[in-house]
């Protein structure tokens, strides 16, 4: 069973057999994972080293009574509330170029869901040369400019979502907030599902 009762049998088989990696369980990762589960994905590999804190509640798929808990534990609990039959592989670890290839080796697609630009770059430069399919995000801070958030296919194995410009910059008043982060997370999940089903991304 999946949470998505609208799937055709062939689509269901593809999505249920797919294994998706999620690198980071913050604003992008937690929301992208929830969309993927609701869409019909059952098998996820999710890694994050952080704990839920008060400042996360403005955009991340966590609740006030989960503050202080490890994000991977809280996210596991929340995803299983959507679909109890999930196969979740949760890793409490900080990702780097040394552990990323093995962690996501069996994943069909990896969602880049980090906050820092350096971590995003690390993941892309580690996974892309091997041909791994990655859906990444760049440029989602602040408010407004919804139409500036686009989906770009880059090379053969990268999809990049965002406006490619608006980074988190508190001095400029650009911080991550639910609407734009949520739009990007949904577009990530949408792109992953379409890619799996060989539909237009």
């Amino acid at each position, binding site marked *: 069973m999946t949470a998505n009762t609208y799937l055709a049998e062939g689509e269901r088989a593809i999505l249920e057999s797919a294994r998706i990696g999620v690198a*980071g369980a*913050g604003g992008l990762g937690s929301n992208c994972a929830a969309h993927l589960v609701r869409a019909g994905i059952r098998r996820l590999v999710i890694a994050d080293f952080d704990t839920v804190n008060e400042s996360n509640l403005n955009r991340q798929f966590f609740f006030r009574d989960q503050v202080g808990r490890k994000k991977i534990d809280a996210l596991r609990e929340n995803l299983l509330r959507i679909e109890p039959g999930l196969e979740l592989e949760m890793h409490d670890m900080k990702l780097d170029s040394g552990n990323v290839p093995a962690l996501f080796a069996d994943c069909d697609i990896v969602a880049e869901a980090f*906050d820092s630009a350096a971590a995003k*770059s690390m993941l892309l*430069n580690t996974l*892309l040369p091997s041909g791994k399919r990655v859906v990444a995000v760049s*440029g989602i801070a602040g408010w407004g400019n919804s139409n500036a958030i686009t989906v770009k296919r880059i090379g053969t194995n*990268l999809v990049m979502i965002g406006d490619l*410009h608006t980074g988190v910059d508190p001095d400029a008043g650009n911080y991550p907030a639910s609407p734009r982060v949520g739009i990007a997370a949904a577009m990530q999940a949408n792109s992953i599902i379409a890619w799996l089903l060989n539909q237009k991304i």
Partner: protein
Amino acid sequence: MKIVYQGDVTETAAGKVAGFLNERNIPIQSVIAELNGEICGGRDSEMQLLRAGDVLNVFRIVAGG
């Protein structure tokens, strides 16, 4: 030598992608480069030769998630 950069014909003296980015003060680690439809990032950009007529697109990686 002329290449097509971000959709515009651009003159460059750089022989490699990394050199081209350096000409424009673009840190290599802050972008993903696509050369002739292929991703060219990190160390690849330091090695990848540029030739006349190449099509180079560069995408910024900024913080937020």
